[in-house]
């Protein structure tokens, strides 16, 4: 426990990943495998269940503390964290030598105490622990009891450090952490051992498309297939016998956020790898990216977001087909295999449905989360232009052209070309600016824009400030003399500076407070000052 509390303290003092590495690696090397496993458990944000209510711990503290309830309460309020306040309020005594030493001993003992239904035993345990522990250790102890451990190391950083420490890829570590595991010596051993995971659900390198938006179409358009360029999160879905993984293009494991896609993938044959786009979906229609983002931007997935935004995996390529690496096959053949795979899955589900319906009238929901992205054969460029016009109704970013005979190649971008739909422009008024933190605390880092609607301002988007912005000085000047209110980093100003803004798409959205979602907005130019406007 001492080493672990020291680790937490050291991590708080470490301002960058490099320093954290210098703290964590020696820690893992010096503690037992089991302690290391428990540390991973806590760093990943897992907690022992059930945990104490903070009021319970406060009541315990009231019995041994020299202070009255009110002073305890006021102290907790001032600290804003019960575990921390109580760690400060219990006097250091280090009276009793506790037989518990290692983190594992402590975790097991705490776990037993938490599950015990004997209040006096729980109390006795907590009291003697407080007596035996120093302040930093008490802090950790309280946090473990309350299930409110705070460690200045994100799971992502942990993955990176473990990868470096064990000579594995970050993806391998992420997969192992994602699989079901219990704290044990063996778990940590397996986590840092690079052998025995040949068949793991890693992603393949992603193929990417070259941007042809402003460069015109290729001459031999008939040798290409066209498909929608969906506006979602690019991902590979990997199905193995005992694991399923969904990887983002940036190499992040998305499983936690995509539970419905994981269960949809259960129906795929083993050793299948699909490439596609994760989309937000509602009422048989794709949702704007801003709505999809609601599922991914918070650290914990909120039940509200998962209820309102269903996910769909829009598959457009197959990289491994029942164990066979098909990346070098021509695109047309891969498309065939993909559509067979998805439609046979459909068929099977449909036949099950028929059998069931013989016995009960209830309707069986087909798993709609796995979809096949449609493809278009092109005969001439006019057809392409027609499609591009439709792109807007389809709420996609544009079109992709993929060479029919090309393999799935990640080095050459010339096999895949993307052509985006022209953006939209609107006039919006600057309502507030946002200052940075730390060394940027006097610098404007973002602008917030709104539009007028029935004499009311509706905030529509935030745009990051770039150093190259020519309007930067003008805005800074304006802010100086037109500030209404400063709240934290946000500074509201008189809504008088009007800009022209361009956005990839403007879609109505029920989930955004403004009712519209702008995609990748950029400022085009400063239109001038206007007292009020109907833009």
């Amino acid at each position: 426990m001492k080493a672990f509390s020291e680790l937490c303290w050291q991590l708080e003092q470490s301002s960058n990943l490099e320093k954290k590495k210098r703290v964590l690696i020696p820690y893992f090397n010096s503690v037992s495998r089991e302690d290391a496993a428990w540390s991973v458990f806590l760093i990943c944000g897992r907690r022992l269940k059930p945990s104490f209510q903070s009021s319970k711990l406060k009541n315990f503290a009231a019995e041994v503390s020299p202070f009255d309830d009110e002073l305890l309460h006021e102290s907790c309020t001032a600290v804003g964290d019960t575990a921390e306040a109580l760690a400060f309020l219990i006097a250091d005594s280090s009276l009793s030598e506790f037989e518990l030493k290692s983190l594992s001993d402590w975790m097991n003992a705490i776990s037993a105490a938490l599950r015990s239904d004997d209040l006096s035993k729980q109390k006795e345990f907590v009291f003697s622990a407080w007596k035996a522990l120093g302040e930093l250790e008490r802090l950790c102890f309280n946090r473990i009891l309350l299930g409110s451990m705070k460690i200045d190391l994100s799971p992502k950083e942990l993955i990176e450090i473990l990868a470096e420490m064990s000579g594995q890829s970050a993806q391998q570590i992420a997969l192992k952490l994602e699989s079901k595991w219990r704290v044990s010596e063996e778990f940590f051993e397996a986590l840092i051992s690079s052998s025995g995971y040949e068949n793991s659900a890693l992603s393949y390198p992603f193929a990417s498309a070259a941007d042809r938006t402003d460069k015109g179409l290729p001459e031999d358009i008939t040798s290409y297939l066209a498909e929608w360029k969906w506006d979602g999160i690019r991902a590979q879905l990997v199905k193995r016998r005992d694991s399923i993984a969904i990887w983002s293009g940036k190499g992040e494991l998305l499983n936690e956020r995509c539970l419905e896609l994981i269960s949809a993938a259960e129906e795929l044959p083993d050793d299948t790898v699909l490439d596609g786009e994760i989309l937000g979906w509602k009422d048989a229609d794709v949702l704007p990216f801003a709505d999809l983002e609601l599922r991914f931007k918070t650290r914990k997935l909120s039940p509200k977001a998962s209820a309102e935004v269903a996910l769909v995996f829009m598959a457009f390529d197959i990289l491994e087909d029942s164990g066979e690496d098909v990346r070098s096959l021509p695109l047309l053949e891969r498309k065939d295999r993909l559509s067979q795979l998805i439609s046979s899955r459909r068929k099977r589900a449909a036949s099950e449905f028929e059998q069931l319906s013989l016995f009960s009238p209830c309707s069986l929901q087909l798993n709609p989360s796995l979809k096949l992205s449609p493809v278009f054969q092109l005969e001439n460029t006019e057809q392409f232009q027609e499609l591009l016009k439709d792109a807007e109704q389809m709420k996609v970013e544009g079109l992709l052209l993929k060479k029919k005979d090309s393999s799935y190649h990640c080095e050459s971008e010339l096999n895949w070309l993307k052509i985006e739909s022209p953006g939209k422009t609107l006039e919006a008024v600057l309502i507030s600016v946002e200052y940075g933190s730390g060394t940027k605390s006097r610098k404007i880092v973002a602008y917030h824009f709104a539009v007028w609607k029935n004499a009311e301002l509706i905030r529509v988007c935030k745009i990051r400030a770039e150093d190259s912005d020519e309007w930067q000085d003008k805005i800074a000047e304006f802010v100086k003399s037109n500030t209404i209110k400063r709240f934290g980093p946000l500074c509201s100003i008189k809504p008088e500076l009007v800009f022209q803004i361009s956005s990839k798409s403007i879609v109505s959205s029920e989930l955004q407070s403004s009712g519209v979602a702008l995609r990748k907005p950029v400022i085009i130019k400063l239109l001038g000052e206007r007292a009020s406007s109907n833009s």
Partner: protein
Amino acid sequence: MASSKESLLIRSDAGLYCPQGDFFIDPLKPVDKALVTHAHSDHARSGSRQYLTAAEGKHVMRSRLGSKAMIETIAYGERCNIGGVNVSFHSAGHVLGSAQIRLEYRGQIWVVSGDYKTKYDPTCSGFEQLQAHCFITESTFGLPIYRWPSSESVASEINSWWAENQSEGRCSVVFAYSFGKAQRVMSMLDESIGPIYVHPAVDELNKQYIASGCKLPSYGAIGEKSAGNGALLGLSLFPKAMVIAPPSVFGSDWCNQLGDFSPAFASGWMRIRANRKRQAMERGFIVSDHADWDELNQVIQESGAQEIIVHHGYVGPLVRDLRRRGFNASSFASRGRDLSTLSGKSPKLDRERSNSDWLQEDS
């Protein structure tokens, strides 16, 4: 309990007032006679006709109140008579020249603590424990969560952080209030590690400290961004340097000229993790020029006072806890009122202050 008639001090709009001697202590508004405990700006305000302050703080007080202010000084422990009240100033150990003010009138002794600390600080005289009938104490950190680590352990933390930054070629910047805190932090530094620089605002106070006979490590000042200045000081020195600057310049152009640096904040509020996180600096060092919970209680105990008035900071909690332990304690607001009206009423203003204005701990 002393009735308000016998009170040597009452609280008025303009601050603590002694009707017998017709003078104010740390007045909030311009008055005729102002007795000032120390030169922090929430205690020493300009505009009064006459000031009386401790001799040790002569230079800092002058630099704060301006060259035209009429300032008289008196040595610690020396007595003078103001309107029949016997007045003396005694070291409070808070910052250079800080004083507790002792009032004696017809056998009654009242002591106003001003801001104080009892822990050792080489940049000012040590705290003098006084006896009084009524002791008026500050309570900036009047909650039991506030207990300071020893100066030695904080000093070694700061120095090893400095050495670590140096090994990475980064400048270390401690943001500390320019009067008192900055000098205290400087006194903790190990000069053998590297060069020490200060912001001009700190430099100005340092000069007053040195003029008052305080020993500080040798240092250079980094001026406002001006042509040639950086070259003069040799920018290459900064990667090894420790820089002390007031918190208000964090993020300013002045800071930007330092290049890459590791920012840290020195304050008693850094005891709380949320405060350390909130200020967007890499480190928070617990350095306070106020008494912590234990010091407050010890000083109150040893004052032998029959009556305690808590005047500033976490008033409610300390008053209630003192009463619980049998002291006759009150705040000016509640003085003379029944305990029941006080209990459970933690003054909202005090709490707000501690949450939002902690950057100005000592201003």
